[in-house]
C-alpha cells in the first residue's frame, strides 16, 4: 500500500504537498562545516579499569620483591656459616624448617642435653651480631623451656616452632650455625610455604599502610624487639 506521507510514494496528499512547499523554505541549506583548526582530533575514551590492573600488578610485584628480600638472608647466612662439626646424623630429619631469623637456643638440664630451637615468624629480622649475642645469652641463661615455648611471649603461635637437637656439646656456638645445619634438610615445599606466608604478611602490611593504619604494624614490630 502506497503512503505519500510515509515514503512519498503513491498518490500525493495535496495538504501535505502544500505544507512541504511552504515549510521547505526553512530547511537546512547545504554548506560546509567550519571546524576551527585548533580543535583537536577526537580522542578515544580511556579505560579506567587499566588503572586498577596497574595498581594490582604493582602490589603483586611489591609483594614478590618483599618475599625475595626476606628470603635472601637465609642463603647468605648459609654461605657464611662454616660447616658444622657435628655429624649430620645428629640432626633429626623430622626437624621443621628453620630460617636464620632469630633462633633461640637453650639447654636443658636433663641428660642427654636437648636444645630447643625456637623460631620466630619470618617477618621479624634482627642484626646478625646482635642476634647471636642475644642467642648466646639466652643459652647461658638456660631459661625454662615453658617460658620460651609460650606463644604469647615471643610472637604469634603460628610463627613458633620447636626442634630438638641432641648432643648440645657438638652444636656450633653461634646458634645460626645450627639453623644453617638444619636448613640443609629443608624441602622446597617448606620454603615455598614460607614464601607464601611472607607474601601474605607483606600484603597485609601494604594494605594497612594504604588504609592509613600503619600504627598497629609498628607497634607489633616494637613489641617483637
Amino acid at each position, binding site marked *: 500500500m502506497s*503512503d505519500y*506521507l*510515509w*515514503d*512519498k510514494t503513491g498518490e500525493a496528499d495535496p*495538504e*501535505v504537498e*502544500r*505544507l*512541504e512547499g*511552504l*515549510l*521547505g*523554505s*526553512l*530547511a*537546512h541549506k*547545504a*554548506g*560546509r*562545516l*567550519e*571546524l*576551527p583548526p585548533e*580543535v*583537536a*582530533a*577526537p*580522542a*578515544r*575514551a580511556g579505560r579506567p579499569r587499566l588503572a586498577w590492573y596497574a595498581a594490582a600488578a604493582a602490589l603483586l610485584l611489591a609483594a614478590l620483591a618483599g618475599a625475595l628480600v626476606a628470603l635472601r638472608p637465609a642463603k647468605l647466612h648459609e654461605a657464611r656459616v662454616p660447616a658444622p662439626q657435628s655429624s649430620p646424623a645428629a640432626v633429626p630429619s623430622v626437624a621443621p624448617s628453620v630460617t636464620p631469623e632469630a633462633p633461640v637456643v637453650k639447654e636443658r638440664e636433663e641428660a642427654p642435653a636437648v636444645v630447643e630451637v625456637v623460631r620466630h615468624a619470618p617477618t621479624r629480622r634482627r642484626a646478625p651480631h646482635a642476634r647471636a649475642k642475644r642467642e648466646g645469652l639466652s643459652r647461658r641463661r638456660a631459661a625454662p623451656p615453658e617460658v620460651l615455648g609460650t606463644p604469647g611471649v615471643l610472637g604469634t603461635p603460628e610463627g613458633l616452632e620447636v626442634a630438638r637437637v641432641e648432643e648440645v656439646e657438638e652444636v656450633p656456638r653461634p646458634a645460626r650455625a645450627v639453623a644453617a645445619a638444619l636448613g640443609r634438610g629443608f624441602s622446597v615445599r617448606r620454603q615455598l610455604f614460607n614464601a607464601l606466608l611472607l607474601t601474605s604478611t607483606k600484603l597485609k602490611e601494604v594494605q594497612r599502610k594504604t588504609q592509613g593504619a600503619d600504627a598497629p604494624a609498628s607497634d607489633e614490630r616494637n613489641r617483637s624487639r
Partner: protein
Amino acid sequence: MLEVETTSQLFFAEAGREAPQADPSAALAEAARAGDREAFARLYGLYAPLVHGVLLARVPYGEVGDLVQDVFLVAFRKLGTLRDCSRFGPWVAMIARNRAMDFHRRARATEELHEEIEQAARPSAEAAEALEIIRALPEAYRETLVLRLVEGMTGPEIAERTGLQPASVRVNLHRGMKLLREKLGTGGVRV
C-alpha cells in the same frame, strides 16, 4: 486525552520491520574518530538536516544555524566517546536535543539578542505560523513532522537516522499529521 505513541510501546508490535542495511555512515564515523576531518565533513553533509530538524522543533528559527555548528563541533570533540559508530545519527540527535535544552536554560540572559537575530532571519509569515503550530504539538510528533515536512526526509530515512523504530515513526507521522490538520482547520490558518 492526547495519546502519544512511544518507541517502547511499539517495540514489540513491530511486525514488518525491514532488514537492517549496511550503514555507510558507520565507516565515516570510524574514520572521523581516527581524526579524519574530511570524513567528518561528509558526516556533516549527511546528518546536518537531521540536526537542523531536531533543533528547529525546539528553538527559534534564527538560532538554528549557529546551534547546528555548535552541535557538530561538540560531536567532533566527543567522537571518542561514541562506542558504536553505526549509532552516529541517534547520538548526534541526542546532542542536538541536549543543546536545545541548554539554549532554553540560558535564554533569559540573551533575550534581547534573540529578537535582533530573529528580525534578521525571519521566515515568511505563513511558514512561521505553520511552524509555530507544529511546535505546539507533543514532542514525539513535532520532531517527526519537522523532519518530514521541513527537511523533506521520508519516514524510513527518519527512522534510520534517529534510531527509532520505523513503526513508531509511521504512527507518529500519521497521528501528528491528523492533529496538525485539526489545528490548521480550527486555528483559521490557511496554508
